[in-house]
């Protein structure tokens, strides 16, 4: 003998097993199912037949779960982007503070930088893990991050260059070799994004998107860490500091593009395989 309530309870269990665990969607779906069964039964169908037709119309649990995940992504993406913005403001605030006019002690600045980095990490992981898995979109996002890092490095490297090109005191302190090193670092920063694009042929193909994202985020954070370490090092003579600083920025720029290179390599492989 067909038991409608038992059948609905079994259907609910199937939905839960498929991963529709949040109460609101499941409750809404059950209400819908009951309304449809009621309508079918009023039209003259038996309880069993009405149940079969109604569950078929509602759709398979796997597909529904995927669709609900998409809805979840929209809000997680917003939270992620908001967190990245907050973290970036903290990091920039600390890095752009003049050493003589700093309100915080060095160890407090390091703590704030770590906190800012953690917020950026949380934001990026939320924003990226919940993005729809569309290869070209991921490549574009990582490319923007790579360009941002490169532009940041170029901007910060240009400031001391302007100093030794225009201020006689600094100009005298920086010899030809130092200048070559600094300009080489600047070139590396500018070309880093292009470099990652070209490197896609020799880069390993990481099939798991989550792993690629983690490596990309780790690259970005390592870049921030390098800048922070360089920033907080004991003051060096201008000529050595400028070389070390510019190459640290160049490395940060290169690391910031790691995500782009890996995504590009994976995308190329997908295109070849398909």
């Amino acid at each position, binding site marked *: 003998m067909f038991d409608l309530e038992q059948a609905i309870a079994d259907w609910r269990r199937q939905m839960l097993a498929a991963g529709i665990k949040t109460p609101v969607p499941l409750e*809404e779906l059950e*209400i819908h199912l009951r309304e449809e069964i009621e309508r079918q039964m009023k039209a003259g169908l038996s309880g069993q037949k009405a149940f079969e037709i109604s569950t078929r119309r*509602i*759709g398979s649990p796997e*597909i529904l779960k995927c*669709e609900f995940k998409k*809805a979840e992504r*929209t*809000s997680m993406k917003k939270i992620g982007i908001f967190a990245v913005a907050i973290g970036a403001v903290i990091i920039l605030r600390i890095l752009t503070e003049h050493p003589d006019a700093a309100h915080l002690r060095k160890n407090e600045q390091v703590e704030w930088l770590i906190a800012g980095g953690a917020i950026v990490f949380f934001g990026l992981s939320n924003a990226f893990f919940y993005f729809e898995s569309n290869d070209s979109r991921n490549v574009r996002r990582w490319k923007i991050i790579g360009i941002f890092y490169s532009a940041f490095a170029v901007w910060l490297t240009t400031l001391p260059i302007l100093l030794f090109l225009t201020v006689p005191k600094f100009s005298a302190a920086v010899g030809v070799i130092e200048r070559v090193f600094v300009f080489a670092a600047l070139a590396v920063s500018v070309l880093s994004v292009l470099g990652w694009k070209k490197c896609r042929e020799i880069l390993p193909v990481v099939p798991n998107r989550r792993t690629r994202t983690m490596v990309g985020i780790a690259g970005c954070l390592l870049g921030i860490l390098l800048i922070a370490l360089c920033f907080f090092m004991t003051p060096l003579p201008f000529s050595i500091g400028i070389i070390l600083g510019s190459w640290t920025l160049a490395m940060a720029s290169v690391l910031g593009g790691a995500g782009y290179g890996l995504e590009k390599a994976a995308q190329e492989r997908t295109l070849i395989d398909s």
Partner: protein
Amino acid sequence: MIRKELVAASAEPLVLALLAQGESYGYAIIQEVKARSDGKLQWTDGMLYPVLHRMEHRGLIKSRWGESETGRKRKYYSLKKDGKTAMVKHHEQWSLVHSVLAGLKKEQYV
């Protein structure tokens, strides 16, 4: 039967347009679309709810729990200000597509 890609693309504008007439709930929205399209526009019933949730996350619509006349729980959806703006945009875009298609069809018979 209408292609599934078109059905998916039309879901948001249709929901917005229906909710512009007053608040409604999932089951009623599906029945209304079915009736208005003579059954040609068929959604997989359950697929409407993720669409509604997505639109709610995006701030186009809002929801509240209520009760039907028979005492059954129901989640009612209604349009928000951003939803009205989105509806106008959808309408403009779909009208444009329609007018281009209609113009091309007309030219074939001239």
